[in-house]
C-alpha cells in the first residue's frame, strides 16, 4: 500500500473530528482547550500534506502561524481558567504564593 496525500488528509480529518467531538462532549475547559489543539493539529497535518502534494513551501509556512495562534489562544484560555478559579471561594491558586519565594 502506498501512502498518498489522501491518507494524511484522512488522518488530519480524523484528528479534527476527534478534537471537535471531544470539545463538545467534555465539560472541562482545560480538556476543551486541548481538544482545540487537536483540531488545529489535524489542520496542520493537512497543510503539510498539501504542501508536499503541491510541492509548495507555503503550506509549511502556514503551520508556523497556526502554532503562534495556538500558543496565543492557549495563553489566554488558561488565563481565563485561572481567573475563573481564583475568584471562587476556597481558592488554592492564591495559596501558591509560596512560589514567589
Amino acid at each position, binding site marked *: 500500500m502506498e501512502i498518498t496525500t489522501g491518507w494524511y*488528509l484522512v488522518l*488530519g480529518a480524523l484528528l*479534527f473530528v476527534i*478534537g*471537535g467531538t471531544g*470539545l463538545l462532549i467534555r465539560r472541562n*475547559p482545560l480538556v*476543551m*482547550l486541548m481538544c*482545540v489543539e487537536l*483540531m*488545529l493539529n*489535524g*489542520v496542520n497535518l*493537512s*497543510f503539510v*500534506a*498539501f504542501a508536499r*502534494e*503541491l510541492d*509548495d513551501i*507555503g*503550506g509549511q509556512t*502556514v503551520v508556523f*502561524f*497556526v502554532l503562534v*495562534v495556538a500558543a*496565543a*489562544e492557549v495563553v*489566554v*484560555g488558561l*488565563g*481565563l*481558567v485561572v*481567573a*475563573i478559579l481564583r*475568584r471562587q471561594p476556597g481558592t488554592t491558586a492564591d495559596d501558591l504564593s509560596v512560589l514567589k519565594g
Partner: protein
Amino acid sequence: MGDPQLFGFVGPSVNWWALMPQIILLGAALAVLLVSALAPQRASNVFTTVTTLCAAFTSFVVAIGLWNDVKIDGPSSSIASAFGVDGFSIFFTVLILIGLATTALLSHGYLEREGMDPPEFHALLLCSAAGAIVMASANDLIVMFLGLEALSIGIYVMIAMHHRRSEARESAIKYFVLGAFSSAFLLYGIALTYGATGSTNLVHVRNYLDTVVFRDQHLLMAAMALLLVGLSFKVAAAPFHFWAPDVYQGAPSPVTGWMASIAKAAGFAALLRIFFAAFASHDVDWAPIVGALAVITLVVGAVMAILQTDVKRMLAFSSVSHAGYILVAVHSASAAGTSAALFYLFTYTLMVLGSFAVVGAMGIDDEHPLSRYAGLGRSRPVMAIGFTVLLLAQAGIPTTSGFIAKFQVIAAAVDNKSYFIAGVSMVTAVIGAFMYLRIVMAMYVVDEGEEGSSPIWHWTTSVVVIAAVSFTIVVGLVPQFLIEFAQDAVPILIRG
C-alpha cells in the same frame, strides 16, 4: 562570516501608507501600555481614552486620504499581495475606526464605574481594532485568519476584565472555547482551499478558479462549507449563534457593543471578500447554502428574541437576526448585494453601538432585566427617545437608517429573484419588531408597582447616543451619501 544568501535577502515592497491605520492603532496601544508601565499615575482613564480617540481620528484621516488614492489609482495590493488596498478595505477601516472611537467613549464612563483597568482595556481594544482592520483588508486567507484571531483574542480578554462579575468570566470562556472551535473550522477551510487551489492568496485562488475546471469539487466544496461555518460562528448566524445570548449577556456592555458591531462587521468583511471576491466563479455552489443559512438565521433570531426577558439577550438575538439580513445580501452574490451588505453593516454598527451605550448606562453590574427599563420614558425622556429611535431603526421602521438598509437588502434579494428569502426576511422583521416594541413599551408604559432603576449617566454616553441617533435619522432621511460610499466600496481587489 554570515551567510550572504541569508543576509542579502530583500523582502517584498511595502505600501506603508496603506498600513498606516493599523500602525497608528498599534502604536497607540503600545504607547498606552508603556505609559501605564512606566508612569502608572499618568495612565489615567482620560489619558487612555484621549489616546484611543486620537489614534482613531488620525487613522481615520489617513483612511480618507487612502480612499481618494484608491479612487484615482484603483485597487492594489501590498506586501506580496497579502494586503488589499481597495475601496472595500477602506470602507471597513472607516467603519471599524468609527466603532473604535464610539466604544472608547462608551467604555470611558463604564471602566471607571465598574473598576476595570483603562490602559489594558484600551490597549486590547486598539489591538482588536487593528485585527479587525487586518481581517477586512486581508487578501490572503492566513492573514485574514490572523486578523480574526487578534480581534477575537482581544475580545475574550476584554470580556473577562470585569473582575466583579463571575458571569463576565464565564461568558468569556464560553466565547473563547467556541471561538477557538470556530477558528479551527475556518482554518480547516483555509487548508482545504489551499489544497484545492494551491494558494491561500485570494487573488491566486480567484484566478485559479476562473481558469481551471475541476474534475470533482469535493475538496473545494468542503473548503467552502468549512469557511462558511467558521465565519458563521463569528457573525453569529444560526445555527452557529448559540453562544451569542449568553456571551452578550455576560460581557461588559461596551464590549458587547464591540462584539455585536465590529466583530460582526469584520466577520462579514471576510465572508464577502472570500465568497464574493475569491469564490465568485462558484457562486452557484455557495449562494444556496448562504441563502439557507440566512433564512434559518432570520427565523431563529426573530423567534428566539421574543422569548427573552433580558434586554441584553434580546439584543443578542436581534443581532443574530441582523446577521440574517446581511446574509440575505451576501446571498445575492451581486454588486448590489454587496453594497447593500456594506450599507447595512455601517448603519447597523452605529445603531447597535448606540443601543449598547444606553444599555451600558442602565445601572451598575451590568444586569439587564426588562423591568429595569420601566418608566425610562418619564425619568429620562431624551435617553428613552434616543433608545426608541435606535430600537425602531433596528426594527426597520422608515425614516431611520435601518429601513434604508433593509430596503436595499430586499432590493438585492429581489434583483436576484430570491423572492422567498425577501419575503421571509420581511416577515421575520415583523416578528422581531415585537421584541423591540416590548422594550419601548417597558420604557413608556408603566403599570402600577413597577419601578425601574435610574441610569448612571456619563457625558460620553450622551455623546455616543446623540451621535448614533443623529446618524441613524440623517441616513434614514438622506441616505444617498452613504449608499454612494457603499457602492464605491464594492469593486473588490480581484487582480494581483
